[in-house]
C-alpha cells in the first residue's frame, strides 16, 4: 500500500523538483533512481520560437542561481556564431560578474548545507554575508540575483573607478568571513560528522560518469573549464584549480569555500587591469547569424555548462541545446546514493546531505519514494522527512 504525505519544499533545501526513488533495507539505501520531470518547462522548445535577443532573457531563467553563467555562455555562443568582436573591457567586466555570481552561489550552497544539517546559525550567518555579494551585484548590474548584465556583444553597464575600488574593499572584508567558515568546516565536530565519508564518489567513478564542477574536483579530477577551455580572459587571469581528493561531501564543501577565495583574487586582478574602451559592440537587434553551428562552454558554479546552437541564417535558432551541470552530475548522484565507502553504508538520513552536496539546480519538490523491501510498502515522503525521519 502506498501512503502519500506530500510536503512542499517548505525550505528550498533543494531548490528544484526531483524525485529520488530509493530502495532501502532498514536504514541503508540499496538502490536509487531519479525522476526530474517536475521542473521541465520545455525551455529548449520555446527558445526555437524566440529571436536570439529574446532568447537571452529566457536562457537567463533556466536556473535562478547560476543565471550569469547561462547568459555568459549564451552570449559567447551567439557572438562566436555571428562573428561579433567583444571589447576587452567587457570581457573583464563579464569575468567580474561571473565570479561574483559564483561567490553568491557557493555561499548560498553553504547555507543550504548548514540548513540540511540543522545548523541554523551557520545558515543565517552565511546568508547575511552573501547579502554583501548581492549588494555588489546589484550596484554593478542593477539586479540582485537575475542580473541581465550580458548582452550579445558585451555588457549593459559600465563600472567606474570608484565602484571598482568599493568592490575590492568589500571583498577584502568578506575574505575574513569566508576564512572563518573554512576554519569552522575544519573544526566543527557535528559538521564533520555529518559530511565526512558521506556521499562517497571515487575518482575513477567521477571520471567514468563524467562528473563536473566541485563534485568532480572533490574527487581528485582537476577539470575546470576556465583552465581547460579558457573563454573570457581566463588565460590571462592567474588562478589555480581547487582540487581535493577526499571524495565526499566535506571535500565538496572545501572546494567551494576555496573557490570563493580564488574568485576574490580573480576579481581584484580583473578590476585592477580594467582596460579603457567601451563596453559594448554595436549589434543589430534582429541579429541574423550566418548558417552554422557553435558550441560554448562555461564553468558555472556547479560545473561545466555547455550550450549548442544551430542556425539556418534566420533570426531564430533552429536548435538551442542546453546541458546544465546538474544533469551531468545526476549519474554521479545515483552512484553516490547507492555505494557508500566499503565499511560505511549510505544511511537514509544521509540522502538529503548527499543530494544537497551536488548543489542541485533542477526544480525539487523533494519527493523520496521509499520502497521498503522488508515491509514491501511504498511510501512517498518529502525529502525533508528523510532529513529527520528514518
Amino acid at each position, binding site marked *: 500500500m502506498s501512503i502519500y504525505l506530500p510536503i512542499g519544499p517548505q525550505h528550498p533545501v533543494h531548490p528544484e523538483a526531483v524525485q529520488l526513488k530509493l530502495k532501502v533495507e532498514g536504514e541503508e539505501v540499496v538502490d536509487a533512481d531519479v525522476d526530474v520531470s517536475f521542473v521541465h518547462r520545455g525551455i529548449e522548445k520555446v527558445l526555437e520560437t524566440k529571436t536570439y535577443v529574446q532568447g537571452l532573457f529566457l536562457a537567463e531563467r533556466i536556473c535562478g542561481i547560476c543565471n550569469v553563467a547561462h547568459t555568459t555562455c549564451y552570449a559567447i555562443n551567439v557572438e562566436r556564431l555571428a562573428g561579433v568582436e567583444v571589447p576587452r573591457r567587457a570581457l573583464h567586466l563579464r569575468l567580474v560578474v561571473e565570479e561574483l555570481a559564483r561567490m553568491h552561489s557557493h555561499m548560498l550552497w553553504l547555507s543550504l548545507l548548514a540548513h540540511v*544539517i540543522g545548523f*541554523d546559525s551557520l545558515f543565517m550567518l552565511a546568508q547575511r554575508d552573501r547579502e554583501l555579494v548581492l549588494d555588489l551585484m546589484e550596484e554593478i548590474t542593477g539586479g540582485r540575483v537575475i542580473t541581465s548584465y550580458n548582452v550579445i556583444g558585451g555588457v549593459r553597464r559600465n563600472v567606474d573607478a570608484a565602484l571598482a575600488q568599493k568592490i575590492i574593499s568589500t571583498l577584502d572584508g568578506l575574505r575574513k568571513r569566508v576564512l572563518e567558515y573554512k576554519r569552522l568546516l575544519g573544526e566543527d565536530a557535528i*559538521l564533520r560528522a555529518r559530511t565526512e565519508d558521506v556521499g562517497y564518489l571515487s575518482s575513477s567513478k567521477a571520471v567514468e560518469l563524467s562528473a563536473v564542477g566541485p563534485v568532480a574536483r572533490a574527487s581528485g579530477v582537476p577539470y575546470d573549464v576556465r583552465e581547460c577551455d579558457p573563454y573570457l580572459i581566463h588565460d590571462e587571469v592567474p588562478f589555480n584549480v581547487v582540487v581535493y581528493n577526499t571524495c565526499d561531501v566535506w571535500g565538496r564543501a572545501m572546494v567551494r569555500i576555496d573557490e570563493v577565495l580564488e574568485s576574490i583574487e580573480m576579481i581584484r586582478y580583473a578590476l585592477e587591469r580594467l582596460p579603457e574602451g567601451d563596453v559594448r559592440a554595436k549589434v543589430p537587434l534582429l541579429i541574423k547569424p550566418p548558417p552554422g553551428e557553435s558550441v560554448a562552454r562555461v564553468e558555472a558554479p556547479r560545473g561545466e555548462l555547455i550550450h549548442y546552437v544551430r542556425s539556418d541564417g534566420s533570426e531564430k535558432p533552429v536548435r538551442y541545446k542546453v546541458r546544465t551541470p546538474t544533469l551531468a552530475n545526476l549519474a554521479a548522484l545515483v552512484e553516490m546514493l547507492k555505494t557508500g565507502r566499503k565499511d560505511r553504508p549510505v544511511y537514509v*538520513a544521509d540522502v538529503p546531505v548527499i543530494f544537497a552536496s551536488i548543489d542541485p539546480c533542477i526544480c525539487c519538490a523533494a519527493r523520496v519514494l521509499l520502497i521498503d523491501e522488508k515491509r514491501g510498502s511504498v*511510501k512517498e515522503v518529502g525529502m525533508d522527512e528523510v532529513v529527520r525521519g528514518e
Partner: protein
Amino acid sequence: MLEPLLRFVQALAYLLYTLLLALLLEWFDRKLIAKFQNRVGPHYTGPAGILQPLADVLKLLSKESVVPEGTDRLMFTLSPLLAFTIICTATAFVPLLGYRGLVSLEGDVILVLALLTLYLLVIYTAGASSSSRFSLIGATRAALMLLGFEIPLMLSCLSVAASLGSFRISEIAAKAQPRLLGIHALGFLVYLVAAQAELDRQPFDIPEAETEIVSGWLVEYSGWRLAIFRLSKDIELVLLTGLAVALFIGGGPNVPLQGFELAIATPVFLIKQLLVVFILSLIRASFGRLRIDQFIGVGWRALIPASFLYLVIAALVA
C-alpha cells in the same frame, strides 16, 4: 468550607503564572536565538515582540483543527490534553515562586521524573494515533531517543538529591547554593545536555517537528490540538529550567524575607531560570543536528558514563 475554594484559586493562579512564564521563556529563547544569528527576532507584536508567543497560540486556537481520516480520533484528541495536564502537574512541584511551588511532597523529585517519562509516552501515542505512517516513525524516534537521555536525566537529579540528603524539591532548593555548583558541575552539565535532548532541541532535535523541516509526531496536528502541544512544550521548558535552578543553583535567596517573598524570591528565581534558558539557547544556536545513530552513540558512550561518574562523586562528597 472555604479551604478547598482557596486551594482551587491558588492552583489556578499558579497555573496562570506557569503559562505566562512559558510564553515569556519561549519569547526569550526566540529572541536569544535571533540575536545569536545576528537577527532581530519577533519585534512588532507587543513591546519587543513579547506577545509573539501569545499571538501564535491564539492564532492556532482560532484555526480549524483537522482530523485526517484513518486517525484514531480518541487518542488524537486525548493526547494533547494528556500531555498538557501531565506537564502542568509536574510543574506544580517545582518552586517557581522561589520560596515554594504549589505543592510539596516528600520524594517529589522522583514523582516529577516519573511524570516526565509519562509525558514522553503520551508523545509516542500522539505520533502513533495520527494517520500518517511517517509520524509513527517520528514517534518511534522520540521513544528511541528516550534510551539516550532518560537515564542521565534521572541519575543527575537523584544524585544531587541524595548528596544534599533530601528528596523534597523545596528542601533541596533551600539547601542548594550557587557555591555548591563547583562540586555538582558535572551533574549540572549532564542535566543540561539531557534536558536539551528531552526538549528535542538542537543538536538533538531528531524526532520533533522543527520549524523549517517538518516530520515527526507533530506533523498531522493543527488548530487547538497543535496549540496545546506547543504550550506543553513551552511549559516543559519552564519545568526543566525550574528543576535545574532548584536542584543545582538553589531556590530563593537564603536570608529570611519576612513576607516579601513574592517580591524578592520570585524575581530571583526567574532570573536564574532565564540564565539556564540562556545556556540552552546558546547550545541550540551553536550546533547542527546529529543523526539518530550518532545521537545514540553520544548518549551511550558519553552521557550515561558521565552520569554514573557523577553519581559516584555525589555519593563521596555528601
